[in-house]
């Protein structure tokens, strides 16, 4: 091993400074930080849209917005949160953590890594800017179903090109992650020694490469139907609007696992640390993750039980969907078994991780209920579905992102995050989250349709409660910003191994991690 130079020990970096440093950077840590900050900004943009929706739904009747604008808000809230907040946030984690966790000097393609990030701001400009054009933003729902999406104004075209650009960003990012994991591991780091976060991202990246091009194909067909006279989704020309749903959900179902598998990875890193026990059933976790990914390709039509399909097809998709509960159950069991008889402490990352298990599992159960075709036909497009996917996306993906942020902030900033703010953030989030979304189960079962700005009087009470919960949840997130800003600016110095029982290569480098790490690959046992 060569001698470590002072440059490598300290956060030295050469090249441009100021804004140009961030625009031209090829450093995985800089790029990871940009992803995370971008995701946080988009999270608040999407959050403002959500709160406007909830303000309108506080009471029956129309008070705050016009129905047309309401439709734009529900659509854009979904698109912004999925493509602007959750996905980039996980890629930010991947950028920061994967090279640190596998002992690589950087990502495999550092310049392309920069481009993957810098494609996002143009895409976000197109997407959010569409509110300002004549006709406003697309109002076809985040799923962009034809024929509605074929009829929208130019805001729809902006959304289409935004999706194309974000797709290119995702594919390049995913290729980078796969290659980094397959080719850049430190000597001795065999596949089955990789931290589970790395495993979940390897499988997620594979899903991204497989399905983002399919989404690109779907929106391309919309574009040509809109402007070039093709008939993909036009029955008069022999096409079929249901075709769009098939193509979209072939992308869309793997997409929901793209948003949850890295969350599983983060939780699988945190639980062992704070239970002070190795992860229970590591190999079964890997196989469960792979099974979920494979099954995700054969369940898409459970999103379309009401579009009319043969009973045999419905049964196939119903059973295939229910099968996913098995590997997911394996995961939940393993997390609980990891905690069993552990020496547990409940710092903020652990609180969010345990909260994740509890609330995500509830979302998993409602998913199982929705998988049953006859029930799904009853709850299709009701608030029950809204409740279900917010339980898995907010209490699932987002809580894991919070957990991961608190867990690795010491490594990123060199300071411990404030436990006081963190705990307030957790308890406010979990209480207000349930206040906002639990009543939606009742609303959905009672028949309240989603994506409608007005509703019958019988739904008034639960909607008022949900709105109070949503505002509470939204404002609680200011605590998250406060915790991050305080941690970045100062606080208790973090040790290299910032948490007592934390395992893994990332805890062998100083906190904050120097600009360049593992220029000499470490040797893994």
């Amino acid at each position, binding site marked *: 091993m060569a001698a470590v130079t002072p440059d490598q020990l300290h956060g030295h970096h050469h090249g441009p400074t100021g804004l140009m*440093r961030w625009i031209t950077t090829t450093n995985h840590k800089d790029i990871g930080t940009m992803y995370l900050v971008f995701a946080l900004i988009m999270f608040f943009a999407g959050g403002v849209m959500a709160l406007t929706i909830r303000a309108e739904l506080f009471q029956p009747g129309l008070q705050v917005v016009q129905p047309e604008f309401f439709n734009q808000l529900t659509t854009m809230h979904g698109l912004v949160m999925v493509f602007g907040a959750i996905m980039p946030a996980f890629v930010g984690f991947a950028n920061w953590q994967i090279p640190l966790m596998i002992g690589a000097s950087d990502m495999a393609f550092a310049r392309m890594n920069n481009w993957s990030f810098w494609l996002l*701001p*143009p895409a976000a400009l197109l997407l959010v800017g569409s509110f300002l054009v004549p006709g406003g933003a697309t109002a076809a729902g985040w799923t962009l179903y034809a024929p509605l999406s074929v009829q929208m104004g130019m805001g729809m075209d902006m959304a289409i090109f935004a999706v194309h650009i974000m797709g290119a960003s995702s594919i390049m990012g995913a*290729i980078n992650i796969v290659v980094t994991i397959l*080719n850049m591991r430190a000597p001795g780091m065999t596949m089955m020694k990789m931290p589970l976060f790395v495993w979940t991202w390897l499988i997620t990246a594979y899903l991204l490469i497989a399905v983002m091009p399919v989404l690109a*194909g779907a929106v391309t067909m919309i574009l040509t139907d809109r402007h070039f006279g093709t008939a*993909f989704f036009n*029955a008069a*020309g022999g*096409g079929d609007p249901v075709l769009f749903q098939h193509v979209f959900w072939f992308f869309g179902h793997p997409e929901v696992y793209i948003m949850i598998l890295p969350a599983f990875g983060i939780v699988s890193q945190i639980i062992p640390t704070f239970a002070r026990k190795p992860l229970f059933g590591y190999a079964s976790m890997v196989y469960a993750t792979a099974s979920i990914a494979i099954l995700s390709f054969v369940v898409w039509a459970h999103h379309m039980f009401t579009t009319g399909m043969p009973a045999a097809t419905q049964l196939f998709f119903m059973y295939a969907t229910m099968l996913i509960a098995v590997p997911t159950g394996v995961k939940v069991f393993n997390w609980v078994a990891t905690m069993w008889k552990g020496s547990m402490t409940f710092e903020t990352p652990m609180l969010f991780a345990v909260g994740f298990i509890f609330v995500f599992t509830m979302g998993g159960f409602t998913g199982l209920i929705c998988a049953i075709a006859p029930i799904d036909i009853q709850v299709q497009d009701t608030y029950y579905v809204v409740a279900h996917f917010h339980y898995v996306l907010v209490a699932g993906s987002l809580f894991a992102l919070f957990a991961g942020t608190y867990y690795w902030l010491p490594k990123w900033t060199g300071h411990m995050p404030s436990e006081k703010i963190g705990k307030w953030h957790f308890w406010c989030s979990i209480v207000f989250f349930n206040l906002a979304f639990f009543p939606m189960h009742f609303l959905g079962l009672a028949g309240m349709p989603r994506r409608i700005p007005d509703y019958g009087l019988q739904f008034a009470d639960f909607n008022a409660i949900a709105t109070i919960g949503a505002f509470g949840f939204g404002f609680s997130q200011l605590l998250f910003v406060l915790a991050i800003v305080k941690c970045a600016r100062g606080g208790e110095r973090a040790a290299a191994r910032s948490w007592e029982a934390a395992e893994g290569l990332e805890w062998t480098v100083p906190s904050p991690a120097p600009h360049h790490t593992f220029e000499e690959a470490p040797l893994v046992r």
Partner: protein
Amino acid sequence: MGHASDHYFVPEPSKFPIFGSIALLLMGSGAVMWLNGVSPGNWMVLAGFLVLVYMLFGWFGQVVRESEGGSYGRKVDKSFRWSMGWFIFSEVMFFAAFFGALFYVRSIGLPWLGDADNALLWPGFEPTWPNAGPIVEEAFTPMEAWGIPALNTLILLTSGATLTWAHWGLLKEKRGQLINGLALTILLGVIFLGFQAYEYAHAYGAMNLKLTTGIYGSTFFMLTGFHGLHVTIGAIMLTVMLFRSVAGHFTPHRHFAFEAAAWYWHFVDVVWLFLFVVVYWL
């Protein structure tokens, strides 16, 4: 090159990615304006395209210089191999979306449209293939497989062989064979594209088969059109390889750029075989 193989090459900060982002922003927003009749959308697309071309030249130029300068070790080479494989897989999935649309329409969509449920809506509609939907405005002639398309199949298959011949030349250090093989492959690609352009013109003229000819026209032109675009991209890649071969780049042991272009060319070839069977023939 002990240094190159010990340390994975991490490039210096680069200005090229941001040019790429500016290019796509210009092209995306320009295309939105153009499609909706807002000026100067077409000029923005052109400007974006020029920026993109500048970026591609600059970026790939730098990669070529780094490669020839010996910055890339064996591990970087392996990264390139993995990434090209995964990139081609993503392309396969892009085509899968359009092939899937074709299969869906032929085996589910059209029979559904012609079943008893829809007989009131579209009386007398026969869900046969080729089909342009229940509202047929003008008659059209469907595409025949055993004319130009069969010839084009032969041309692409031959181009795969000439490319392999070029690769043998590279491996056996026969520079002339490499250059001739590449030039022949590119020529065959251009002939293929020429035939396809002629076929399109013939379809639009004598056969009255257009992009707007219902679902048949949509799937035919989108599938063959995207394939043609990929042939064009592949031919551009091979042209770059030709220039690099003339300039004396590549050794029998280190020439992944050539192999990547060849992988891509073979991928385009295989897509064509699927197209020939399911779009032209069946």
